[in-house]
């Protein structure tokens, strides 16, 4: 297929009424889910997952992209009006959005965030298109050695960056890889660890694991907090004051273009790094904005720069995550991990050949991303007056309904009850992991990469028994070196942190 043909096919696929409807519903659901504290974007994408099974590939992906883009924006409304981030990626937005709203400018605070998100998202979208194509071409030079090293690097980065200790992160990653070993092996098709049962022979497919580890665990943690204090919001914000002078707000954002561009680049970079989500991007961008600002003392007291930094960074983060998944088949965060599942459900293998084999779908994802960015602003302005009532939905009603959707998502994948039991098992495992301080991201990544790591390792060993190739092939060698460095840096920082604490305690 030629580039132009693929582009035309992609545009036609996104313009399909069913696809557009899915995208709009996705944006709406994302906005609401993102705005409700305790409901993360990941959870919202998991919720929408079973609905995409019945759609075609582009329709399903467009819906998910809608949720993803809309969700990043939804968090900011709660952040500004309630002082509570709707999602972790809006944490830094509360720092200035809430003070500004309290000082009598709720409309300005919310719209600064919405417009900044749009601009950040659009700038990052350009990188999404060119970055994916460029990185995809780069990845075509990879042999099995490079893939193996890339996956190892990914796992170590995730383990060293995830909350808590790196050791526990590495344990979680290894357990994830081992979970993938159960069932029929990907190369010789022999049974492994099945204990002779048909149940284990089908293995643990990763979507039920993902829904269990992220979805069920999150709901149970939320239910635990239900009694401790009602998370529902009593606040009432005067509707009329949510209006804003849009041209003035847009002008304000564009005059501070340095901040906008810097924050967007930070968001992109964090997005490209595997499994480090928007929760890091917005705080990092906020921090930098404060350092570079001419009025750093206004930060925390309603500085418009703070809102712009946080919101443009977390929308750019979406584009960055999409780059990693499209170019390498590695999920940039939990949301793209679910998307990876959706791709596989529709029979498409993500990875470096994705762009070559499915150019039309890749283009459709680009187009859907841009449409979602714009649609978010439109949908948000339409529902803003009712927003707080939507956010105020009863938690004890919401959580059980979400659990039903989790079960449908796990079951409808292969019409197997075994997958529902897998969901429950990993839902409990995720809960125990959180309880004992093990990060969740590495286990998911292990499960996702398990087959690929093994296939590439075995393939490289069968091609040549020269083990030094992993180090002497330049790209592979550099990646293994980076993996070592990321482990080393993490150990060094923990040591330094502990020493500093010791000094504090003595002093």
């Amino acid at each position: 297929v030629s580039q132009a043909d693929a582009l035309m096919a992609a545009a036609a696929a996104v313009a399909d009424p069913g696809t557009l409807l899915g995208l709009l519903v996705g944006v709406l659901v994302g906005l609401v889910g993102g705005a409700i504290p305790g409901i993360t974007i990941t959870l919202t994408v998991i919720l929408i997952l079973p609905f995409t099974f019945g759609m075609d590939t582009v329709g399903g992906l467009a819906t998910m992209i809608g949720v993803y883009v809309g969700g990043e924006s939804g968090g900011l409304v709660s952040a500004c009006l309630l002082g509570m981030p709707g999602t972790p990626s809006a944490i830094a937005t509360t720092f200035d959005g809430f003070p500004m709203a309290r000082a009598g400018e709720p409309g300005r605070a919310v719209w600064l965030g919405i417009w900044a998100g749009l601009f950040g998202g659009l700038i990052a979208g350009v990188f999404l298109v060119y970055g994916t194509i460029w990185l995809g071409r780069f990845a075509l030079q990879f042999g099995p050695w490079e893939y193996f090293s890339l996956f190892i690097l990914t796992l170590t980065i995730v383990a060293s960056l995830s909350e808590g200790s790196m050791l526990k992160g590495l344990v979680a990653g290894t357990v994830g890889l081992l979970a993938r070993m159960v069932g029929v092996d990907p190369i010789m098709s022999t049974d492994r660890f099945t204990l002779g049962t048909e149940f284990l022979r089908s293995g643990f497919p990763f979507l039920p694991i993902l829904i269990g580890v992220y979805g069920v665990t999150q709901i149970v943690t939320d239910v635990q907090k239900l009694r401790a204090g009602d998370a529902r919001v009593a606040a009432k914000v005067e509707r009329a004051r949510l209006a804003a002078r849009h041209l003035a707000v847009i002008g304000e954002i564009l005059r501070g273009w340095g901040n906008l561009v810097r924050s967007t680049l930070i968001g992109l970079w964090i997005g490209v790094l595997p499994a480090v989500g928007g929760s890091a991007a917005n705080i990092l961008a906020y921090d930098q904005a404060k350092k570079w600002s001419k009025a750093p003392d206004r930060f925390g007291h309603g500085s418009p720069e703070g809102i712009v930094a946080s919101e443009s960074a977390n929308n750019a983060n979406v584009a960055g995550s999409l780059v990693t998944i499209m170019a390498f088949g590695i999920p940039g965060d939990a949301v793209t991990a679910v998307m990876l599942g959706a791709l596989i459900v529709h029979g498409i293998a993500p990875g470096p050949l994705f762009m070559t084999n499915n150019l039309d779908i890749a283009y459709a994802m680009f187009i859907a991303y841009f449409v979602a960015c714009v649609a978010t602003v439109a949908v948000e302005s339409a529902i803003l007056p009712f927003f707080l009532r939507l956010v105020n939905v009863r938690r004890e009603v919401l959580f059980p309904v979400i659990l039903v959707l989790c079960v449908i998502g796990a079951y409808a994948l292969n019409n197997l009850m075994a997958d529902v039991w897998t969901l429950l098992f990993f839902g409990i495992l995720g809960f125990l992991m959180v309880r004992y301080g093990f990060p969740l991201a590495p286990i998911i990544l292990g499960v996702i990469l398990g087959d690929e790591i093994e296939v590439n390792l075995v393939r490289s060993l069968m091609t040549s028994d020269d083990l030094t190739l992993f180090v002497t092939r330049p790209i592979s060698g550099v990646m293994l070196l980076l993996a070592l460095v990321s482990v080393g840096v993490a150990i060094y920082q923990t040591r330094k942190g502990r020493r500093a604490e010791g000094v504090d305690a003595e002093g």
Partner: protein
Amino acid sequence: VTGGDLRGRGEGLADAVIGLLLLGLAAALFWMSRDIPSPPFVPVTPAFFPRVLAGVLAGLAALLVLRGSRRRGRDGEPRAARGPLRPAVLVYGALAAYAFAIPRLGFYASTFVFLLVLVGLLGERTARGAVRALAVAVATTAACYAVFTGYLRLFLPEGLLR
């Protein structure tokens, strides 16, 4: 001894116990990997990678045991979130019963009961709460039927409805 120290030591202990469990898991997997059939003339057998992973897990678990047993109060890690256990057990129990019921009663009947019970138990225990639970169960079940079976044509086991 302050409370913080005690908690830190408790966590170290938990880590050590988890490490021991994982060591056991690694050993069991290594032992079980002998049962994996290896085809002739294949230099890298299907048992190879699981064994490597079991070895890595054993090493990491040993470190966890070592660190956990040496651990004193401060550890530089965020203290694990510990909520009350009862609601967690309630949700997991309800989910297990739900999963057990689906093949027997069908998806829609099970969903109705699951929602009725869980919304009822999580919400206020009043007549109003009961009515709300009933309304949610009816509405959600109906909506699921309309969307998943009607519009999207997913194959959910219909059971009693058939």
